[in-house]
């Protein structure tokens, strides 16, 4: 059923796993059920957290209103932006890097579905930016309010930051207006599609559902962040309900005609969850939180006790406001080698906001784009040729509390464009791939923020 290690073998091994102490701060023990508490993580991350918060120590935007040397500004400290900030410093430490990220902590979207089912804590997927500061990245917890491409400045409120090159990694923004009643109900209708407080709140709602209550999950039309994410979430919610609320059911209203990613693997996994009712081509166009009801494009009304509505998406607001999006007004087209915007010179766009490359909107791809873009930006600032580099995508999905599946894509550069070499799927689900998923997460969090 898999590439070599049977479930019974790995299960037997897991019972006698002989590792107890992990020295590295970003490491989580790689057996699926282990949790790392917030307190433990802060302890392992040293004294930087306390020092960073001391009054007067934190840099202010106004400290950067003048530029002395070469400067790269990065907007957004997620999978793409944090990686890019780190790797520009690695590529050329003489370049000043300023990272604008409103949130003081990074919360990982990958693995956040496990928080819903209680397999992971939110603390175990939450990290600070202290190691980026140690690498010389000037981290400002402020939102960019505007970009002035002609003047090469980013505005932050009344202040402005001049740059030589700008890397924009703004993630996605929700198209609230696409679902009637949603804009006015943003505080009650949860998306939990940006990991953080909504993830915790949705987990609470799931835990408090009555036995026999209906949980409705709605999936927007592609393209959206993390193609397999809604189907992994389906598994995690169904796993929780099966174990804790056996009379409850999960209705999945998918705007797409079929599962967008890993369809056969997810359908095989769902055989273990008779509590799932999956309805393809059921686009939700209206929500009525008072009546606890959603309406589909076909006019079907579906009642819920708990609702998780994942809205349609577009590039982050700053990218739209700065006219980095294409004719679709949703996504940003970029050069496949440098990630420079096709709309504005000296501005690079990476991560979920991009379109035109044959890659999924995944954290792994954003991380890869961050590295490639960083090398390209450092090369361009040093008048050196940009080396041809292609991204990769490794994407695990948890189908229960202990088993995972995966899809992997590799790419090459052909005629100046990113072209897929191959896509591989795991032949089934297993604990071994779940262990690899944990290994992947520990590694890539470190690659971004360590």
């Amino acid at each position, binding site marked *: 059923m898999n590439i070599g290690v049977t479930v019974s073998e790995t299960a037997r091994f897991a019972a006698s796993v002989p590792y107890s102490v992990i020295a590295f701060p970003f490491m989580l023990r790689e057996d699926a059920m282990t949790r790392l508490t917030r307190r433990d993580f802060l302890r392992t991350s040293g004294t930087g957290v306390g020092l960073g918060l001391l009054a007067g120590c934190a840099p202010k935007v106004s400290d950067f209103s003048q530029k002395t040397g070469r400067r790269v500004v990065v907007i957004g400290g997620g999978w793409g932006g944090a990686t890019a900030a780190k790797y520009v410093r690695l590529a050329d430490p003489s370049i000043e890097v300023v990272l604008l990220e409103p949130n003081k902590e990074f919360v990982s979207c990958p693995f956040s579905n496990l928080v819903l089912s209680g397999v992971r804590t939110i603390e175990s997927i939450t990290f600070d930016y202290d190691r980026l500061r140690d690498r010389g990245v000037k981290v400002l917890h402020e939102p960019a309010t505007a970009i002035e491409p002609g003047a090469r400045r980013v505005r932050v409120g009344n202040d402005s930051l001049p740059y030589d090159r700008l890397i924009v990694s703004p993630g996605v923004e929700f198209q609230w207006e696409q679902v009637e009643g949603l804009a006015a109900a943003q505080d009650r209708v949860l998306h939990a599609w940006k990991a953080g407080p909504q993830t915790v709140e949705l987990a609470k709602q799931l835990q408090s559902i009555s036995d026999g209550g209906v949980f409705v999950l709605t999936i927007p039309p592609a393209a959206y962040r993390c193609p397999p994410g809604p189907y992994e979430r389906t598994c995690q919610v169904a796993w929780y309900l099966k174990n804790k609320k056996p009379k409850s059911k999960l209705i999945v209203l998918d705007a797409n005609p079929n599962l967008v990613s890993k369809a056969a693997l997810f359908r095989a996994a769902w055989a273990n969850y008779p509590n799932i009712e999956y309805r393809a081509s059921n686009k939700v166009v209206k929500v009525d939180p008072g009546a606890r009801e959603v309406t589909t494009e076909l006019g079907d009304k579906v009642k819920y006790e708990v609702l998780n509505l994942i809205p349609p998406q577009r590039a982050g607001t700053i990218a739209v406001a700065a006219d980095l999006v294409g004719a679709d007004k949703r996504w940003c087209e970029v050069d496949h080698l440098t990630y420079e915007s096709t709309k504005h010179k000296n501005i690079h766009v990476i991560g979920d906001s991009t379109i035109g490359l044959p890659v999924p909107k995944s954290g792994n791809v954003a991380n890869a784009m961050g590295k490639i873009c960083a090398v390209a930006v450092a090369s361009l600032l040093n008048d050196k040729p940009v080396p041809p580099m292609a991204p990769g995508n*490794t994407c695990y999905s948890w189908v229960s509390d202990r088993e995972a599946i995966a899809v992997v894509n590799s790419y090459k550069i052909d005629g100046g464009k990113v072209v897929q070499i191959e896509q591989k799927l795991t032949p089934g689900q297993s604990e071994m791939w779940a262990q690899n998923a944990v290994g992947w997460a520990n590694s890539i969090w470190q690659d971004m923020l360590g």
Partner: protein
Amino acid sequence: MPFIMSLLLVIAVAGTAAAGPLDGPGAPQALVCSACHGFGGQSQSNTMPILAGIAPWYFKKAIQDYAAGKRQSPEMEPYAKQVLQFGVDDVAAYFAAQPRTATPVKPEPAAVERGRAAAVQCTVCHGVSGKGDPSRGVPDLTGQPPGYLRNQMLLFKADRRSPADDQLKALKALMRTIPDEQLADLAAYWSSVR
């Protein structure tokens, strides 16, 4: 003589000062690997092997075997083809030149001790040091993450790694005589060896 030495040193330093950690053949192409294998191949994970300091012949064989499906891995097969696309020799040379630090994963001391007592069966090929023998195609075991070493032994035992490779027949026969629990102990021991 001291002057010449100093001059050589200055030239050497000047020669490397312009080259950052992302410069040189293979370095940019190896960045795609760092998501799982760590920056410079210094894996921080229990399941992903350390590539820093890896012998080029072994890296190249691994990439070719993954790409050809001899080592079956849905994760590695696509990436192996990507490495071949961008130049396996450059990427191999890059990782070989990276300073290697042993895995940060710390096995339980008791498992290490049990593994030490049983490790003599490995030393016939891998040597008492565990550093292997390139002339015979035997790789270095030391300092690798224990989870990776254990998984590879399980794959050998089940004949799922390089099934038709005659050179591995004796190894696989040996693995079949060892209980899974002892494989974990052996992994713990060789992981702890420096």
